[in-house]
């Protein structure tokens, strides 16, 4: 099976967020970029499928600026990806989800692809648009928030589940197909040092991004919330008094009592 995994560099989880001087975006200065956790799950899924299906390859594709995009592609190779393609893009071409989806779709179309995997969203802007848009652009069904993905070689179909508002859904789909995976349900592996060293010299195919049509999503403002001032602590003598005071505050002050 030819498996393509689309990945995105995002700021490391515990990064202290700062606003860029123009107030319109995150200040990337000094930020360490890593694979988003959702994509780690997608890559892990690809590697598991590859191991279970002889003759499979994993091709990792990313769209974004230097050097962070190249870094996450190399990190993916260190984890076990066989091939890598980098769509070099900056500014809106790297931040507008539909522009990114179009750039990724062009790169995916150019290579063999039975199954396209990605995270259901990235941990930074959390749009979750790219997977579904990729499905449309590749004329394939797509599914978001997927867990427990299996390939049934006998029928050539994928079987998987999703936790949605309606319950635990079971699905099946033919290939080719785009699957956007839920995060951290499959315990992603970590790379070993020899593989990391080897990944530094691995070839990465580079393709340019092309301007997209259909309007633009432009970041106008990026704001951090005022620091929370700390909890209003409830004074009480008995548990019953604490309960009664809290319920009253939730009803009358916070107005969130259901």
């Amino acid at each position: 099976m030819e498996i393509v995994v689309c990945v995105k560099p995002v700021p490391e989880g515990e990064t202290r967020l700062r606003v860029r001087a123009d107030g319109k975006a995150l200040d990337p200065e000094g930020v360490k970029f890593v694979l988003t956790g959702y994509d780690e799950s997608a890559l892990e899924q690809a590697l598991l499928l590859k191991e279970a299906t002889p003759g499979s390859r994993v091709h990792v594709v990313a769209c974004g600026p230097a050097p962070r995009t190249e870094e996450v592609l190399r990190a993916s190779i260190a984890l076990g990806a066989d091939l890598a393609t980098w769509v070099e893009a900056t500014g809106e071409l790297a931040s507008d989800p539909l522009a990114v989806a179009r750039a990724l779709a062009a790169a995916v179309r150019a290579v063999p692809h039975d199954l396209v995997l990605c995270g259901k969203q990235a941990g930074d802007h959390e749009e979750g648009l790219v997977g579904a848009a990729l499905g449309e652009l590749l004329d394939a069904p797509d599914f978001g928030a997927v867990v427990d993905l299996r390939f049934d070689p006998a029928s050539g179909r994928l079987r998987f589940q999703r936790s949605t508002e309606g319950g635990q859904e079971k699905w099946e789909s033919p290939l080719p197909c785009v699957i956007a995976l839920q995060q951290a349900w499959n315990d992603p592996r970590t790379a070993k040092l020899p593989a990391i060293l080897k990944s530094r010299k691995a070839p990465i195919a580079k393709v340019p991004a092309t301007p997209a049509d259909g309007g633009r999503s432009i970041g106008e403002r990026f704001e951090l919330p005022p620091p929370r001032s700390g909890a209003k602590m409830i004074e009480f003598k008995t548990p019953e008094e604490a309960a009664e005071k809290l319920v009253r505050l939730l009803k009358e002050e916070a107005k969130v009592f259901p």
Partner: protein
Amino acid sequence: MSPGVLVVGELHDGRVVPSTLEAVGVARTLAPGPGEVVVLLAGSRSRAAAAELGAHGVGRVLVSEDARLDTAPAAAIAVVATAAARALDAGTVLVGGTTFGRDLAGRLAARWSATAATGATDVVRDGTALRVRRPVFGGRATETLRLDGPRCVVAIRPHAFAAPAGSPSSPTLEAAPAVEIPAPLLAARRTGVEPTSAGAGPGLTDAAVVVSGGRGVRAPENFRLVEELAAALGGAVGASRAVTDAGWRPATLQVGQTGKTVSPQLYIAVGISGAIQHLMGMISSRVIVAVNNDATAPIFKVADYGIVGDLFQILPALTAEVRRARGT
């Protein structure tokens, strides 16, 4: 941008889901006049479900009663939605903030050559564009986007908007434009659904109230105290990573950076110290309550209300008080 606004609705068990009604509320603020919001419903039960939209100020409903859409992916409904948006000459399509809504938004945006945003907590017109506010980075920041183009798709954030009231009326019903759905989209199908049991995991990301337990609960059998409070509040149960790693509760209940991100109206953290790992999954909750026996726990820095005390005493009292207050 054309002023027309279309809401693509979602049905669950033949009923319109709450997030669709929330989207209708936003659509009414964007539509050029009252009664000019159009809703598209798809599936064999769409005609019956359309009636309840009248009570929310919807004047016109398009129905696509194709039974194949009952078990088809959002991608198939996006084909119908694109045809409907074109037929109406709509400039904006709104969807609810559900798994279905997210899937539909990206698919429709690509098919309809639109620009798009999800998780919107505020949507306003700005000349010919839409301005959308949305939390990012797990609620640690907020961005404002300008969607600039003739066509925009916006998925709203769950619970961020109220379902609108309207004088009860019967919306006019029309058949949605007939359109051929590509075979691969119908070859993919939902083969089953296990409904969410009350307070159980799958409803976690959609619940208006979440009660999560952490290490302070001490043993798996004590977790019922958390579950009882969640049930009394009509909410969902969550857990910290310590709890799911220990196998006390399944990993599907984990709230945090490596688990689920939730943004309920009310989040109650019980016996959770408040590691950044956990905070990233719940910091965008509207009101946070912490119950912990350690007054120095970092959770109290982000909480709105704090109770320092023994959860084994506080929780039963709180559950009883909640039941009394809700009359259940």
